[in-house]
């Protein structure tokens, strides 16, 4: 994540803005610490949750200080946020920890009907808009506003329902799933071709499995996923049994991921014992950017996230039928290992976190040692052995690949002080809008975590989940900070959210409970959910078709009909080589079924065969000598942009231009 902001690297020290801004922030945080010290002195009590809050204040200070060395949109905002949220908890601790149940809140039946009608009007409006916008390749701003209003109405129903029976809970779950699926389908079916980069090859793999009726890929295809084929087999089975197209069968993976959020509801219900918090967790995760992203860009990890969610439930919720839960957890362990590599690594970390949290919990909270552990060490070892055994498979050793990548990262990329500061791009500041939703979720997450860590609410399952997301967050932020990117940290939040958003929903409920009247509560719930969901569903992860904040520098990862026609035309006209940027090459190769080369623009740390980047003259000679046509996408990520990297507009002749793609000779 941190790396993606600074693709080129650099040797500049931060400009004056981050230094000045950071110094101001540090001063403010120091003042806060003095105030906290005064408050603690008055209360004369240092409980465990308050201790964690103090650690939070210091951690915020530390992260803010890091901006002096290197700055990006996460570092500049998260530090002050952590400090402010921890400070807020210390000040309002007594009020936040006061027992309250939203199930007792009453609003009239008439108001409930109005909220319900509003939900259905918005849902119908969304369906109509999806229908009318089909084929335009863009979803208007109004669409996202309507979805956010719809999310807020569900939030109101969650807050003000009486939960007399399970049918009431089921109705809200149905509404969340319906809205979530509509939003994801609107992004997924915006183009008739796969959305994103990797889904193209996954679509091919699914087609191959259907064609050969066994786990086999066409000659020349990358054999990597022959060792991790379960997602493709799952999608292929939908194709065969349900008579769906490949595109629709791929969406069934997104559908499965959406359905798996029911298990977030179940985990949350189990540890908080409150249906409103459990439903809120489910609502938050369904409209979190990374959950939407991987439900739209279907890859093997999308399937693995749903398995991870179910597995976490089987590990934490096994009191009633332990034998059945054990069998299921072992089955899901095998599935996740054979489905995706990074996901099984995240699972290993999660099981280690759950096991170690159990031991630490007993020491911190002085709990009876005889109590049964959540997880046996056998399961932890089983997950480690099974994963690594599969990784050292001699037919395709993923272990060799990651060790080579790690070796390369550690020896070549440890450039912490050489990062480019955020202010190098004029529009980078606008990118903070991209993470507003993430920051709001974090505000609630921190407050919810501190509440749950208090002696009043803590239990070993809560503490285990706390350990899981803390460990994963550390990997998410820590690894890229030190230049190690071969564990693909930008994908981790999708897994972190499974446990973290339960705590965020606790924090949300606690903050809402601070307001005195029902009308205040209703306005707060509506406003907070509207703002957070709007920024979540419109940011660059969840919305790759209709960018809202980043203007020219934004990119779209799907192919339009006009671009496809361009490819077909050049395929008919040109007998020689066709070359493109790295993003388009695989797509063109699949469409034209001919060998398409690409000009590298960036060295990938995972690649064992390191490609060299050409300079401008070498690139021009290469194109002249081989008499090739080069196809460039205009709205691709910077790392793929050949035009800017090699200055094609000045050096070559443009022979085709369809607005979003050009062909140069």
């Amino acid at each position: 994540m941190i790396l993606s902001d600074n693709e080129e690297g650099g040797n500049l020290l931060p400009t004056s803005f981050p230094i000045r801004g950071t110094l101001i922030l540090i001063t403010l945080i120091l003042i806060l610490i003095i105030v906290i010290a005064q408050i603690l002195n008055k209360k004369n009590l240092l409980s465990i949750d308050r201790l964690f809050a103090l650690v939070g204040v210091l951690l915020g200070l530390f992260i803010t200080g890091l901006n002096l060395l290197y700055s990006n949109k996460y570092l500049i905002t998260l530090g002050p946020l952590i400090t402010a949220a921890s400070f807020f908890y210390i000040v309002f601790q007594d009020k936040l920890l006061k027992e309250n149940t939203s199930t007792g809140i009453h609003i009239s039946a008439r108001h409930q009907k109005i909220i319900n009608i509003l939900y259905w009007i918005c849902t119908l409006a969304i369906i109509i808009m999806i229908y009318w916008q089909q084929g335009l390749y863009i979803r208007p701003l109004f669409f996202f506003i309507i979805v956010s209003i719809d999310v807020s109405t569900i939030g109101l129903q969650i807050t003000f329902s009486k939960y007399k029976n399970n049918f009431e809970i089921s109705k809200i779950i149905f509404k969340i799933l319906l809205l979530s699926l509509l939003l994801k389908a609107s992004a997924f079916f915006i183009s008739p071709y796969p959305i994103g980069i990797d889904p193209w090859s996954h679509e091919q793999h699914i087609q191959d499995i259907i064609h050969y009726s066994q786990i086999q890929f066409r000659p020349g295809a990358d054999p990597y996923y022959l060792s991790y084929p379960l997602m493709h087999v799952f999608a292929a089975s939908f194709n065969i049994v349900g008579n769906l197209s490949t595109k629709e069968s791929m969406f069934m993976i997104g559908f499965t991921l959406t359905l798996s959020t029911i298990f977030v509801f179940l985990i949350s219900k189990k540890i908080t014992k409150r249906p409103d918090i459990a439903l809120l967790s489910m609502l938050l995760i369904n409209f979190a950017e990374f959950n939407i992203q991987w439900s739209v860009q279907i890859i093997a990890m999308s399937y693995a996230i749903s398995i991870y969610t179910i597995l976490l439930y089987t590990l934490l919720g096994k009191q009633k039928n332990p034998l059945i839960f054990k069998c299921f957890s072992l089955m899901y362990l095998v599935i996740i290992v054979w489905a995706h590599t990074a996901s099984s690594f995240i699972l290993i970390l999660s099981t280690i976190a759950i096991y170690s949290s159990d031991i630490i919990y007993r020491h911190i909270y002085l709990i009876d040692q005889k109590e049964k552990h959540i997880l046996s060490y056998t399961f932890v070892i089983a997950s480690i052995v099974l994963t690594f055994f599969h990784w050292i498979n001699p037919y395709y050793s993923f272990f060799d690949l990651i060790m080579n990548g790690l070796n390369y990262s550690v020896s070549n990329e440890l450039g912490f002080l050489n990062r480019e500061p955020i202010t190098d791009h004029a529009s980078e500041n606008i990118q903070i809008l991209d993470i507003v939703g993430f920051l709001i979720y974090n505000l609630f997450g921190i407050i919810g975590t501190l509440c749950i860590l208090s002696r009043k609410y803590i239990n070993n399952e809560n503490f285990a989940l706390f350990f899981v997301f803390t460990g994963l967050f550390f990997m998410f932020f820590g690894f890229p900070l030190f230049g190690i990117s071969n564990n693909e940290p930008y994908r981790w939040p999708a897994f972190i959210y499974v446990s973290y958003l339960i705590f965020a929903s606790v924090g949300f409920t606690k903050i809402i409970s601070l307001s005195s009247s029902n009308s205040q509560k209703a306005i707060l719930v509506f406003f907070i959910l509207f703002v957070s969901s709007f920024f979540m569903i419109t940011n660059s992860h969840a919305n790759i078709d209709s960018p809202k904040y980043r203007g020219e520098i934004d990119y779209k990862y799907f192919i339009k009909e006009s671009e496809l026609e361009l490819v077909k035309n050049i395929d008919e006209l040109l007998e020689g080589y066709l070359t493109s940027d790295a993003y388009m090459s695989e797509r063109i190769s699949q469409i034209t079924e001919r060998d398409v080369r690409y000009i590298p623009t960036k060295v990938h740390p995972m690649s064992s065969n390191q490609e060299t980047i050409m300079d401008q003259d070498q690139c021009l000679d290469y194109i002249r000598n081989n008499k090739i046509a080069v196809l460039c996408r205009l709205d691709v990520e910077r790392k793929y942009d050949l035009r800017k990297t090699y200055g094609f507009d000045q050096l070559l002749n443009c022979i085709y231009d369809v607005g979003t793609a050009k062909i140069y000779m």
Partner: protein
Amino acid sequence: MPDNIINSLTIFSEFNNIMIEILIIILFLKEILLESKIWSKRLNNLFNIAIWSLFVYFCIVIILKILHIIGKT
């Protein structure tokens, strides 16, 4: 890394696979039996001895594999 170790790694790779497969079966079996009525302290000790000895073997295999990879690069 010395050639004789690399050779022995190749020769024994099939043997390694069998040993690790046995370890996985024992781990799975223990996980399931843990919740059954036949589980006893004696069984627990027997399984623990088997698991830890095979796990140490597994760790050695992985460490040698890492050394092999780093040596190549």
